[in-house]
């Protein structure tokens, strides 16, 4: 096997765990498989493994229950935070102000909610199905590209044709920052994904406190007409966190009871 083919087989085997990679590539080498056979064998295994993962409900919930709707909603919240900030800073950058009457308190509330919603969504996606994370990432990229075109690229064109409310404000003064405005949520979301993948377990009380704070702030923003009805959906990841924290606490107490019984 040439070294370039070897590298390709190694690369194709990357989604597998270290031990599996060792065993599978070692078997191919030992059996004297040609480079093409080794590559197709590894790819076949990776594909089978991925397909088998989708027999469970977890990747479906992670990709279509959390990743897709969260991307859409968090992009609009990011834009909203950007617009409110520029209005409060007194910058006359445009007319796009979807939640146009918020003060500094509501802006801070939105910023906290944006970080908390993003982190909890990322955490839920990372912990639910780490092995199918690439699907959630692909969905995110597809949606982000579509929404970015809608909000950033198409909107100023509409504005030129008289649909001023669609124009995005940052184009005038901060053209370099404009493409980043809808992606304020990405960093906390990636942080959450990493925590979720590391199987960091939240205790029940902190999870409850986080969910309660998010609910209170969401309700407060809702009462002040500063939220869209669909933003309530962003509570789901926090509720999922509470449910998993509760389950792991129940499992822990059961284990303690069992070990107490066996020691008696």
């Amino acid at each position, binding site marked *: 096997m040439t070294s370039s083919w070897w590298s390709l087989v190694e690369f194709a085997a990357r989604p597998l765990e270290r*031990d*599996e990679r*060792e*065993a*599978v*590539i*070692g*078997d*191919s*080498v*030992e*059996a004297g498989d040609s480079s093409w056979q080794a590559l197709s*064998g*590894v790819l*076949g*295994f*990776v*594909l*089978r*493994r991925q397909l*088998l993962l989708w027999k469970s409900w977890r990747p479906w919930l992670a990709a279509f229950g959390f990743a897709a709707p969260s991307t859409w909603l968090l992009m609009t919240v990011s834009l909203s935070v950007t617009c409110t900030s520029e209005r409060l800073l007194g910058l006359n950058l445009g007319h796009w102000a979807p939640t146009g009457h918020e003060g500094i308190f509501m802006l801070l509330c939105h910023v906290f909610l944006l970080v908390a919603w993003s982190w909890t969504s990322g955490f839920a996606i990372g912990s639910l199905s780490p092995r199918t994370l690439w699907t959630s990432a692909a969905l995110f990229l597809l949606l982000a590209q579509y929404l970015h075109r809608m909000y950033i690229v198409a909107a100023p064109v509409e504005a030129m044709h008289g649909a001023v409310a669609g124009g995005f404000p940052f184009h005038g003064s901060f053209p370099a920052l404009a493409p980043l405005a809808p992606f304020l949520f990405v960093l906390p979301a990636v942080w959450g994904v990493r925590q979720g993948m590391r199987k960091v377990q939240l205790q029940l009380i902190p999870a409850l406190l986080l969910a309660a704070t998010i609910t209170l702030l969401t309700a407060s923003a809702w009462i002040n007409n500063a939220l869209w009805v669909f933003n309530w959906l962003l509570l789901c990841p926090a509720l999922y966190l509470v449910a998993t924290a509760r389950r792991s606490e129940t499992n822990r107490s059961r284990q303690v009871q069992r070990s107490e019984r066996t020691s008696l």
Partner: protein
Amino acid sequence: MLGEFEYLLITTAARLGDNAYGAAIREGIEEVAQRKCSIGALYTTIERLEGKGLITTWMGEATAERGGRAKRMVRVTGKGTRAAKEFYEVMMRVSSGASWAVRRAERLS
């Protein structure tokens, strides 16, 4: 009850004993069943059987002929042996009276 490929894998692993690992099992299956056995089918079945508690696996030593890579060793558990025996007996019972089974029994006697 076991599936056909699961039975092939367990039986081959049992026959190989302490030398049962991925490549050897694959070779054994291809030899006996006279058909190609893909790495994907082999390892997903190993994983499934391990999940059911019918086999256990662990990482063995690395050898030069494998490019210095470790083997995934396989051992059939007691539960696996019982499941394979049950499959075998069902196949024997269901085959009794079938023309190919009768002819084989005659040849053997």
